[in-house]
């Protein structure tokens, strides 16, 4: 076995251990805080699979995360740590709603298509700001994108209050999205075709990154920017374009979420958080879009489990945040189990050396 194979297997093993360890720790915490820990735990673990509606719920929850997660993958592959996914998602949802409610007479398919396009354009448009600041003035995209997200939030709020808001509605919400503008439901459940669009986006992003020359440029820029530059790749062009692509995908995700799950737009005042969850998904997926659905599913499963547990026991839903934090901690920690890995490699290297000497 080569060191390379050991390392690859170790990475997979490490992720499993991280998830198991985080869940294990979580279970210990539950058993301390809960009056009926056994019920709580079983609700958390098996609850999400007990009913079709809950499985549908997992699918629903994972759908937006696939978009923001893929957006993060593409940007992180090029070492562009932009957080613009959050704002792009919100403005995408907002303007898709705007287009839908202002074009009530359109037929379903063209309406949805244009809503998607509007959302993508909106996502790209807001991503331009941190991307251009980075390329023109070397402004750190992490900071400027987070700041930009606040600006976007206020723009979205403005549009919501002054254009979209339905005063006749009993709650703080927009005018209703026309029936024909909503995404199709699947299997008579709440889950919608957005999950299929999400899967297509993940696969397309994978092909784009690993099988095309554009993706090659992105990967090389991320692997070593100086090397990419020296080889003749326009690294600033890559920094710009990956951020715009990320913004566009997140924007599309916003439209899919709003047209798939909601009757009215009702996000205002605070950031809904899908972009930040996307970072979680991207990290878990190791920036590989093909693993994004898996990571998104895991997250959605835990959230649904926490929801179920919240309903049947005395453990609050926020508990899932603890588990999430722990998983990310273990997965992201480079040196987690490094000693064990080193031991594996040392033993293997020694064995190989001996075999080689014996052969000589």
């Amino acid at each position, binding site marked *: 076995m*080569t*060191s*390379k194979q*050991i390392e690859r297997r170790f990475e997979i093993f490490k992720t499993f251990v991280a998830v198991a360890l985080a869940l294990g720790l979580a279970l210990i915490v539950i058993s301390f805080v809960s009056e009926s820990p056994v019920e709580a735990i079983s609700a958390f673990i098996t609850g999400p699979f007990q009913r079709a509606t809950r499985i549908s719920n997992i699918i629903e929850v994972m759908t937006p995360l696939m978009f923001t997660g893929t957006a993060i993958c593409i940007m992180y592959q090029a070492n562009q740590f932009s957080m613009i996914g959050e704002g792009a998602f919100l403005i995408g949802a907002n303007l898709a709603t705007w287009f839908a409610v202002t074009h009530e007479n359109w037929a379903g398919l063209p309406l949805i298509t244009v809503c998607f396009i509007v959302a993508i354009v909106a996502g790209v448009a807001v991503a331009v700001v941190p991307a251009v600041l980075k390329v023109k003035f070397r402004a750190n995209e992490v900071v400027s994108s987070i700041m930009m997200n606040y600006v976007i939030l206020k723009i979205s709020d403005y549009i919501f209050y002054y254009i979209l808001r339905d005063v006749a509605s009993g709650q703080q919400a927009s005018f209703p999205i026309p029936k024909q503008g909503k995404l199709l439901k699947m299997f008579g459940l709440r889950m919608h075709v957005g999950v299929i669009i999400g899967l297509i986006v993940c696969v397309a992003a994978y*092909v784009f990154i690993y*099988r*095309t*020359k554009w993706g*090659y*440029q992105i*990967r*090389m820029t991320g*692997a*070593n920017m*100086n*090397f*990419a*530059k*020296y*080889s*003749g*790749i*326009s690294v600033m062009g890559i920094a710009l374009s990956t951020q715009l692509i990320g913004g566009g995908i997140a924007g599309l995700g916003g439209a899919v979420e709003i047209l798939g799950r909601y009757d009215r737009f009702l996000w205002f005042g605070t950031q809904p958080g899908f972009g930040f969850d996307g970072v979680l998904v991207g990290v878990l997926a190791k920036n590989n879009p093909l693993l994004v659905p898996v990571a998104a599913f895991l997250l959605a499963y835990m959230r649904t489990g926490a929801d179920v547990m919240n309903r049947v026991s005395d453990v609050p839903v926020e508990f899932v945040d603890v588990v999430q934090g722990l998983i990310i901690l273990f997965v992201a920690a480079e040196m987690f189990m490094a000693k064990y*890995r*080193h031991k594996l*490699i*040392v033993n*293997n*290297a*020694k064995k190989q*050396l001996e075999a080689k000497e014996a052969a000589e």
Partner: protein
Amino acid sequence: MPEEILLMDKITKVYPNGFVANKDVTFSINKGEIHALMGENGAGKSTLMKILFGIEPFEEGRIVLKGKEVRFNGPLDAIANGVGMVHQHFMLVPSLTVAENVVLGMEPKKGGMFDFEEAVRITEEACNKYNLKVDARAKVEDLPVGNKQKVEIVKALVRGAEILILDEPTAVLTPQETAELFVELKHLKEQGHTIVFISHKLHEIKALCDRITILRLGKSVGKANVADVTEQDISRMMVGRDVVLKVDKTPAKPEETVLKVRDLKIIADTGKPIVNDISFSVRKGEILGMAGVEGNGQSQISEAITGLLGYQHGTISVNGVDLKGKSIRQIRELGVSHVSEDRNTYGAALVASVKDNILSDRYYKKEYNSGIMMNDKVINEMTDNLIKEFLIKCDDRDDQVKMLSGGNVQKVVVAREFSNKPALVIANQPTRGIDVGATEFIRKRLVELRDEGTAVLLISADLNELLELSDSLIVMNEGRIAAYLEDASVITDMILGEYMLGVRTQTPEEIARVAYD
């Protein structure tokens, strides 16, 4: 009976990528000797010394210093125990003075403030005691390389080093500076210091050292009194065979001019001109060597030609096309190949695969793409052929480059840069820090390229390499061309050294001969 001051007993070190750098290496030195540690690049010399200095942890074995078992947790630990190290790449703060560098981390204070005069006194005292002449008040960035090295030695001595490790100290020096260093080291030895001298230059070992330990492929393969062995014996122990680093080369048949550099001026960020009005030409079918102590503008020239660095004044043209305003890709498309001196930063992406590294200058070309997708079949075939042709040792094309040895990383770089039918190759330190086999291979390929009609600009700090490969030579000194030597075959390294140091000069007319059309 000589007293053993240090014993490294059965040391085994495995790097995180599975590379066994040292296997049961035993290394013992006596007090007051100069002990040579020899071996090819990649034999494990530097690793062994990094272990001793506390930079790298080790898996097995023990270190006994003055009869006491020790294990250093870092350089500070090692220094506190009287072990000092002068690294190949100097660890100095260029913008500070010599005295400030010497006392860094142990600054003398007066009333809570840094006492510069006391620092100068400490430095001068040490300089006098050990007969190392450096101006304590000079800024390090203004010093020549040889003096920077002295500052490093003083720094170690002031910190109480009894054992001094010198990692290839002569690699950056001219022959004259080397001779001076040897006198100083012998002086230190007389004063009771113990010196570990790492090198792979045989004649230096014979001239300076008392005993040697030889490493090969991570194991100690020999130990001897230098007086008892010949250079041939040592070289055989080092590589396991007789080495001939001689490249067969016919006289060059230069044709039309490919590279024309005229009045090139490059100003550094500090405002100082680092390349100052230089002009030269390289013709099709010849190798022009560029000698010079490092830091005299050679790197900047290679970066300016290849588009990595902008320049303020002058013109560079390749086959009649002016390079001003051209992107790196456009310059590469003109047939300019670049072997960067820093393969880990520019030459290769260590975390990417061998395949991806070879592909980086051609991935966008039609032949490697079919429609919007990359054509894996063609790419894999091309990669596998190059791996075979350039004898790159790897399991397969998907291996990460960081898993390969330095020599093989450089072969990956060279495989890419030499295989795109270059009109001009800028080879900057093409064989630095790599094993003899790879060195031999790369040198041979350079001569082959020349014979196929490529113009080659060879920049190197290795004088033997320059004299071996070049058809003509230019020598750089302080950003200017100090000499043009039309026939490299009649030049010796001593003459080259004198030009590099500025002891010997040429008239402007003589130098201007290299700027032909």
